[in-house]
């Protein structure tokens, strides 16, 4: 229960930041891909920088989780073709829908019709991936 509430709260906080910074917005995404504003790039770069700094501190100081375990961070496996082709397809979807995975859920709460359509699309895409998983190049 405690874990559920913590996770729910963190999701709420993450969503609130994406809302306040308008990163969830279709228009901000188009603006980014048209290089019309530094806003989204600033967001991404400063988020990555902050995260990298804290990951460094966690590693250096051997910081433990609240459960007393050593925190270990694993990089995602390199699958060149999957990363590139999947990435290109994701990027297309990101620009068309103006939403990546987190904003899809935010939009369910904000504009429920379009949000649910997006979510249904994302599930459909996942099912298609699951059906063809063995035929896709890696």
């Amino acid at each position, binding site marked *: 229960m405690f*874990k559920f509430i913590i*996770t*729910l709260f*963190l*999701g*709420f906080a*993450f*969503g*609130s*930041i994406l*809302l306040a*910074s308008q990163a969830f917005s*279709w*228009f*901000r995404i*188009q603006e980014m*891909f*048209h290089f019309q504003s530094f806003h989204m790039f*600033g967001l991404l770069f*400063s*988020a990555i*920088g902050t*995260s*990298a700094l*804290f990951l460094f501190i966690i590693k250096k100081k051997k910081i433990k*989780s609240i459960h007393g375990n050593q*925190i270990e961070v694993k990089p*995602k*496996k*390199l699958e060149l073709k999957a*990363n*590139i*082709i*999947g*990435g*290109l*397809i*994701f*990027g*297309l979807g*990101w*620009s*068309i*829908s103006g939403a*990546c*995975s987190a904003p899809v859920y935010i939009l*369910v*709460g*904000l*504009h429920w019709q379009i949000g649910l359509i*997006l979510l*249904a*699309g994302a*599930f*459909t*895409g*996942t099912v*298609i991936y*699951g*059906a063809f998983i063995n035929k896709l190049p890696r």
Partner: protein
Amino acid sequence: MNTPLAWYFAGPLIGLMVPILLILREKQLGISSSYRFVGATLLPKLKYFNYSKNQDRWQIHFALGLVLSGFAAFQLFGAFDEVVIQPILDYEKAAVTIYDVKNGLQFFLGGILVGFGARYANGCTAGHCIMGVSQFATSSIIATISFFVGGLIGSLFINPILF
């Protein structure tokens, strides 16, 4: 709320999610695995969905928090239509109505590509761009570059046809 929270405040706050999730929940930031979890619940017979889904359960709770944040924003500020939009390039006319259901087909198509691409690339903007790149993981750097190339093509060449 017409102007967004400045990137130099919001960006570091987004970045802070990574250590907070690690310390409080021992989880690496990511959201798109939640799609697989739901698939496993709805269609357990498909081989890809037959996995130990408990590892991804937390993402459903996280996603629920995201939905609630959108709902709370709706209650506080309305549909955000007037908020989000400083007119951008050719999309001024579309500004108020982009989230209209008449664009449902385009959004459904975009959703399919997001879901398929995120699972195929093994991560999305959160898992690859933020979590992965801040670890300097090769897979995530390559995926992030691909996200942007795909996004440029979509935004510059496909969207003018679709919308």
